[in-house]
């Protein structure tokens, strides 16, 4: 089960940063909620998104899909629809560069291990201090 709390901060440079605090487990049952929350926050004008994983105790492979989809959203692209099945997507997804608009805060050991193993840390900055994370946008 996953609980999502959201709030807003303003980075020193004036950018609006939406903070999504994830609590519980990010898995096949909950990854869609993360994507939809992100979609709303970005639609409401957030310039960047900080995923606070301080209270996230588990992330499965569906969490990686959610990260990828949110990365596409913050870059102004449309993420793939997991319900479309075999429909071919013309959009090839985010570039291989670091995604500046999406950052991660304080992943717990199991989650950090998944981020490391799957290579996600190459594309997303991981911070341990919330104030510094917000300031980095």
């Amino acid at each position, binding site marked *: 089960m996953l609980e999502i709390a959201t709030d807003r901060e303003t980075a020193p440079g004036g950018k609006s940063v939406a903070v999504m605090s994830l609590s519980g487990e990010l898995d096949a049952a909950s990854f869609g909620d993360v994507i939809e929350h992100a979609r709303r926050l970005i639609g409401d004008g957030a310039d960047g998104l900080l995923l606070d994983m301080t209270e996230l105790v588990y992330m*499965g*492979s569906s969490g990686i899909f959610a990260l990828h989809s949110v990365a596409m959203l913050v870059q102004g692209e449309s993420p793939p629809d997991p319900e479309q099945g075999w429909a071919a997507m013309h959009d090839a997804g985010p570039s291989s560069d670091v995604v500046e608009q999406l950052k991660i805060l304080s992943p717990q050991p199991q989650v950090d291990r998944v981020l490391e*193993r799957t*290579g996600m840390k190459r594309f997303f900055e991981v911070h341990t201090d919330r104030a510094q994370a917000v300031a980095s946008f």
Partner: protein
Amino acid sequence: MARDGLDSELAVARRIQLSLLPACPVAPGWTFEAKYVPAREVGGDFYDFLYHARDEGRLEFVIGDVTGKGIPAALMMAHSRAVLRSEAHHAGGPADVLMRANRILTEDRLASLFLSGLYARVDLASGLVTYANAGHDRPLLIRRGGAEYVELDAPGVILGAFRSIELTDCVVQLDAGDTLAFYTDGVTEARNGDGDLFGDERLALAARRGAASGDARTVALAILDAIADFTDGAAQSDDLTLVVLQRGWG
């Protein structure tokens, strides 16, 4: 009636998927064992053994884990397996195989699923193993006797998500009696009734006990038995796959 039809089709799909998983190779001086337990009738884990010119004494294999479960993952599994088999014949080292496969998978973008994968090339005469890791769980190297073990670290990125990824080949030397165990996260993330994870330490302990007393099959069965004891009947939530190889003593 509709449910019966679906169940029947799933049973057929399961047989087809299982038929895609090859028998373990037989090579003098080596033992191999592979185990696959899907969480549903079909799943997204896979392994494959490929030979390239048997007289050169080279064996290649891959283990992979598609995000998701059930029918979508199974279809992606079949597609990924075919892509990897095709690229294995054209590519250079293991990293090149995975990077070439990634380009095809990101271009196809079928079902929007990703996969982790580890590709390895084994020199059966020398025991040198060259491998590349695309976001997969770190394999366990257990030295003969089972007392010493290490997780083989190799930086990587999952396949099918990002257009351009960089992977590198790593090498490890297997001496007589050494064991390599590859697995999917369904092993370490198997849960008991209290929600606890089986974890890396229990995996290493089971693998080491198996390696101390027997060959690749013994190691694989030791791991599966340990998981069964730990989960104690709790529902299986993810596919579970093991590939174990051991260099013999002669």
